[in-house]
């Protein structure tokens, strides 16, 4: 799975370069919607950041890759136990 994902990223990068070569002209800071209007830039940026953070729930035990001022937006949903990385090697013996 990991190799598939890395290969997908490489493919995506190549597609980006090809698309760039096509020279598409965009005047909107976050691109255009399906009907051609400029996308609400803040909404689009936030949706992208949310997707990345939620797709990497265990990238770090310390912090997500965001500015400190945004910590409170993402701190809790991914915290399941006080120390999520403390694994459970065993459980109690049956009586």
């Amino acid at each position, binding site marked *: *799975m*990991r190799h598939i*994902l*890395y290969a997908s990223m490489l493919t*995506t990068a190549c*597609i980006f370069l090809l698309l760039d070569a096509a020279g*598409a*002209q*965009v005047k*909107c*800071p*976050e*691109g*255009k*919607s*399906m*009907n051609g*209007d400029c*996308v*609400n*830039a*803040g*909404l*689009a*940026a936030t*949706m*992208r950041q*949310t*997707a*990345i953070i*939620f*797709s*990497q*729930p*265990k990238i*770090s*035990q*310390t*912090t997500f*890759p965001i*500015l*400190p*001022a945004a910590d409170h*937006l993402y701190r*809790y*949903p*991914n915290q*399941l*136990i*006080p*120390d999520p*990385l*403390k694994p*459970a*090697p*065993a*459980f*109690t*013996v049956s*009586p």
Partner: protein
Amino acid sequence: MKRVFVAGIAIAVLSGSAWAADIPQKLPVKAAPPSSVASIPAPTWTGCYFGGHLGSGWERDYFSNPTGFELAGGSPLFTPPSPLYALPTLPLDQPVSGFLGGVQAGCKYQFAGNWVTGIEDDFSTAHLFGFRELTLTPFVANPATLVPASLQTETDWLASTTANLGYSFGNMLLYAKGGMAWSHNKYDLYATPPVVSGVAAADFQASETRAGWTLGAGIEYRFWNNFSAQIEYNYYDFGTRSVQFKDQLSTSGSFGSVDVKQQIQAIKFGLNYYFWNAANSAASSTNASVAVSAAAAPPSMTWSQTFSSEVRYFSWHSNRGVPSNAVIFSSGSPAPLTTPGSGAELYIPYATQLVGQSNDFKIELLGRGGWVWARQSTAGLTGEVATATDAVMSGTITYLGLQGIQPFASLSLNLPTGLAALSPAAVNARMDPDLVDIASFGEGFNVGPTLGFNLPLTSSLILTASVGYTQRGTFDREAPLTPPGGGAAPTTTSINPGDVLTFTGSVGYKVGQFSGNLTGTISEETTTTANGMPFIRPGMRYLIAGSGSYIWPWEHVGQTTVSASASHSNRNEVLFQCLTGCPTSLVTEPFNTNSNLYRIAVEHLFAFDQLAFGPTGSFLYRDQNGYEPTTLQFVPAKERWSAGMLARYAANQNLTLNARIEHVWTQEDENPALPSNQQYSILAGSTVTAFTVPVVSSTGWQFVVGATATF
């Protein structure tokens, strides 16, 4: 009405809410918009420079093939693991990490349009330090005689001579480099046989300089004509060398040698001054404003930089310390530690973000680090630590040239610059993260690629889908418990955490004064191993989170934001340990030890010109007792309430100040005794008497001040 609207906009920006980001960014809570950034003509990179750098490094030193290392009397220190005790001996991995800083100088030459090549020398003084406790069995005839030992490793300088090749995007240069490298290392192996053995202590020391090769990549950004800032990753491979040790405590001279394989990774933040630059020379001679050929300028991309930092202080008191069911041993029997608990933490995160925008692409780069001091003052559970935390980095590229879909690719990294394994004197500084900000200061090298896309159905209705994979690296963590009976503290455990695959889907909507979003994820994780043995495979996890904001249509009333989330995990697969007849592979646990988590938070901000302030509150609920077997404890069902005030002040268009004060209450339900009134201790290899922990009530204060500046 106009003032109300302006106030609404101001408060939305000041709130820092994710849903305020679409409003014209009068204040730099998020990345600065292109409109606030001047497009700087692209310079040529041809020139020479010098500068300095700071950074973090971490390495793996692999020790193998020991010879010599004899204690007085001729007992070899390193023997094969005892069949009775199977205690650690060589070979072993020694994790090493710390800070470095130094100077660099070099020259660059731009050619064929945007290509840039050059050479560079750099030297870093370093404090890359590793410490590991070992328990050895040198007395073959009596393997029950254990010898505590410690292995200390330090790299105190690094140097390299490299050639580099890069590609210029105007003010930004992406480059790779490679060349020769050197390191200087010091080692100390200290063994203290027990007095009853009649053998004296030994202190084997060594130092060496070794040569190897390095590869790296980085980003350099030009500003103020002659200055540049850079961030760079370096990988050093110094191969395997035989290192000669000498016992400093032996009068007759005792020697040993061991093969040490050394690989170092480093992240450096640098600042350069171009004392000679072809662009400036050309400009002065031709009176041209910018000496850049047309071929060197494209593609046009504007950049903005944001720096953000906060100082956070936490203080708490409780009727118990952390962990709440810590034990003391009286006459060999465990009993609860009932002393009241208290502690404090100071955490200073800092981050810088670089956002580039062109017609077709948006590039977002972020680097973040931190420093923490934490201390638990609970009698019997005292511990203190001061350390850098792990650093995280991320880069995201979004393609904007398609109508109706904007695909993006992102790569996030966790760099092990913090302390993963705490010493016995520091381990109790891990406190409840519902009362302090962070309870874990470091782990391994994690790599997290993400692929996804925004699908804007309209300008204000967006669907987003993404998939992320997190490959998590191995790290050492202190073993959690002192064995029953008060024996020697256990050594560290090598943890290889499972990788995580996560699918995410979101919908976001904004119209008028209202905005909202809803996000759902499904995560699956592979098996975590401890010391190479399968340990746990967490159950599949489901999470849903959403928020909504409304800007009230009255002057100064401001904005209300409500957010909520819930998560659930299926049963884990765990290593079943019992007295006899246990399965050796992971089995599905008979009851779900994962607690569901629910949280709701409300925040309201009043707006007065450049100032926004208001109350904030939250409620968190863990619905059941979950088992946390590394400490042989239940994680009790828990409620957490918080209430406080927050304020943000826009000093000007480029600087925002913020402050927050909160009071926190937590209450944990009774920690149940088992039906058998016993718990199984992995360390003791048998059951121990259990006891019931009463309701644990804690209170705490949190103070936060911070600033965000855009350049």
